[in-house]
């Protein structure tokens, strides 16, 4: 018994040593007592900070782990509360005067709604300075409301990706397209090879339709350019004006083309009833070849699927108009505070540093998390798709734009845009669709 006990303690100790040495140097430094990066926050013993988010098990573990160095060095305690209904709950809690200290908010539009409740607190100067230092300027604009800055970005995802099967491409002699025209030519070539090139699914409970909004935003960025895209998102041009209409028609050339869709899943209307999680899976069966979906789709492949450049599936960048321009559509979360107690501000500052971004990567050993933080050490990323995404975000040629529907008013961005996109895929004309969305835009 005694020997077994000693042995197991020894094993545990070596296991701990091993895990901390092969993760991040910052994380291991913190646990071995190197708290120099945290002295600026002072002694926060006995203080508690509550965090609320829509991220639940198992992904929440990585967040909780990434907070540990801060807790160990400052003595503060961070409680994490994940809730699948976060997006509706946080508004109710903010209105009821019972918000958490910090919320991880997934949409700039929701940040604006939270600011409108009067419960959100502007971020301290240290956070704004960190954001200036570590992020490209457009990121700062997303949570700036009426000239006040409300919080640093947390995670990020890249949406402008097309999933494919590297082995199929190799066997059939297909090349990864570098322009939109090449993508079209590739699709036609697949059709002439007797294939249905694309597969898609947009069903997602009450959010059914959102993947089409991503498609449309990607096409809008490519055909009209980032400046026009911003105007469209902010309703400086009407939803049914020429450019957005053209963008939706460009999506239609792919998704409403019976020759192109819906490999292994049915006719065009089957896109409406296929869940977005199932949308790309026929690539594994070989019944379709291409699936446009964000980097987070990596988590949807069944266990045992190798996601790598030479594996079962991988993704390429949805090309721009020319090989030279690189618009990237993406998403992300923001840390918004509802309290300005010193410990909350200290923790908020920690979350805006490169230290935290790298701690978070270290706490996510299987991949699936990246940040647009320039201080993120991309070489520490374990999954190839994370590397691809991080490279895209950090590429100086990249013009990043945040998901448009997430920035539109809720009545459009999470209601009429989804509903009308669903009606569009099941047969409604492009004109009726953009007209109906324009009509639903709130007047005030």
């Amino acid at each position, binding site marked *: 018994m005694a020997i077994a006990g000693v042995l197991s303690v020894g094993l545990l100790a070596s296991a701990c040593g091993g895990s901390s040495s092969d993760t991040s140097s910052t994380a291991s430094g913190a646990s071995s007592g190197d708290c120099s990066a945290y002295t600026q926050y002072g002694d926060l013993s006995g203080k508690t900070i509550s965090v609320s988010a829509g991220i639940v098990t198992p992904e929440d573990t990585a967040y909780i782990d990434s907070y540990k160095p801060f807790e160990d060095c400052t003595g503060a305690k961070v409680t994490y509360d994940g809730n699948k209904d976060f997006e509706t709950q946080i508004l109710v809690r903010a209105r009821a005067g019972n918000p958490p200290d910090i919320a991880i908010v997934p949409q700039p539009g929701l940040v604006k709604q939270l600011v409108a409740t009067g419960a959100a607190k502007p971020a301290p100067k240290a956070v704004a300075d960190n954001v200036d230092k570590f992020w490209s300027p457009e990121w700062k604009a997303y949570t700036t409301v009426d000239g006040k800055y409300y919080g640093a970005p947390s995670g990020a995802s890249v949406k402008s990706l097309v999933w494919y099967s590297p082995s199929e491409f190799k066997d059939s002699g297909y090349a990864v397209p570098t322009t939109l025209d090449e993508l079209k030519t590739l699709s036609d070539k697949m059709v002439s090879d007797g294939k249905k090139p694309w597969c898609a699914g947009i069903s997602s409970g*009450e959010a059914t339709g959102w993947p089409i909004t991503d498609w449309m935003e990607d096409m809008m960025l490519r055909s009209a350019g980032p400046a026009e895209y911003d105007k469209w998102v902010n309703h400086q041009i009407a939803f049914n004006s020429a450019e957005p209409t053209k963008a939706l028609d460009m999506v239609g050339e792919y998704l409403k083309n019976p020759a192109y869709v819906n490999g292994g899943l049915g006719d065009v209307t089957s896109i409406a009833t296929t869940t977005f999680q199932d949308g790309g899976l026929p690539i594994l069966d070989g019944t379709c070849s291409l699936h446009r979906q964000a980097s987070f789709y990596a988590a949807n492949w069944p266990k045992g699927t190798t996601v790598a450049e030479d594996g079962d599936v991988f993704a390429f960048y949805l090309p721009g108009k020319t090989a030279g321009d690189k618009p990237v559509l993406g998403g992300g979360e923001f840390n918004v505070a509802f309290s300005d107690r010193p410990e909350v501000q200290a923790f908020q500052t920690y979350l805006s540093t490169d230290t935290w971004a790298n701690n978070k990567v270290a706490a996510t050993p299987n991949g699936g998390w990246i940040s647009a933080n320039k201080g993120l050490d991309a070489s520490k990323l374990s999954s190839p798709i994370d590397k691809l995404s991080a490279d895209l975000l950090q590429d100086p040629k990249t013009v990043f734009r945040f998901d448009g529907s997430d920035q539109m008013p809720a*009545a459009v961005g999470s209601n009429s845009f989804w*509903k009308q996109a*669903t009606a569009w895929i099941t047969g409604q004309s492009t004109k009726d669709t953009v007209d109906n969305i324009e009509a639903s835009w709130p007047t*005030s």
Partner: protein
Amino acid sequence: MTTLEKLTSMAGALLLFGAVMGLILYIAGRFGERRAGKPVAFLFLLPTALLVAVGLVYPALRTIYQSFFDAGGTSFVGLDNFATIFTSSDELTVLRNTVLWVVVTPFIATAVGLLYAILVDGARMEAFAKALIFLPMAISFVGASIIWKFIYAYRPDQANVKQIGVLNQIVVWLGGTPVNWLVGSPLNTLLLIVILIWIQAGFAMTILSAAIKAIPGDIVEAARLDGVTTLGMFRFVTLPSIRPAVVVVLTTIGIATLKVFDIVRTVTGGSFNTSVVAYEFYSQTFSSSNQGLGSALAVLLFVLVIPIVAYNIRQMRATEAR
């Protein structure tokens, strides 16, 4: 909050509850034996009335108040939200679907339950046959919806693709091509209604079967001696005798139908023109952040339920008076 803090606050709440109850009992005890009655009853009613006021009356009034305000709940818009319900094409579809649900579900569910109750009455293995149709009642609405989602599931007619939906497999066996059932309106609403009928028929059967068994034997005997036909027995004896039970079943299912939310949310999420008032008010309030319209829909639902509840209560009173 730590576990200890939770336990402390729980203990605190229990103590407070005990103190309030003790106070009530003490005051009640101050009234003499003889004068007890009304004051004591009122005292005991007080906590309930207070909770109902806080948890039910206040939110109801608040909802009505909010229904006159805009999306953010800040500026007064009068009856605009109600006008939207009766003019916007989206909301009109919602109203049409709700009407379809309320007209179809109670009558078919009751008819199926009644037919089944009569057919199995006195048959061999009656208990087993009843258990079979009653089983769906034991499943949650969400569970039932997921089962039926598999029945309606759609896969294309392709060589290497197998059907996973029961209904489409039957279609394929019969030589047809698979249909994407849930997309076409208003057929999809009817297919959703089938789910609620499947759940509620068992409830109707149970109540009606009990009512049939309660018909006095001498009436049935007398009718038989008079030489009544099977149909005549149903028309002149069974139906009049169980009429109050039929009304209760119809109204109860009617109220349940107005409140239907889980089925729509689980199967289609309100897509493809399948939304109903009870789902739409949630979706408007929370997804679209349109508090005003959401509240107006809730008020409408409330108004629609009132006549059914009133009729139900009157019927029950009439039955009790007999």
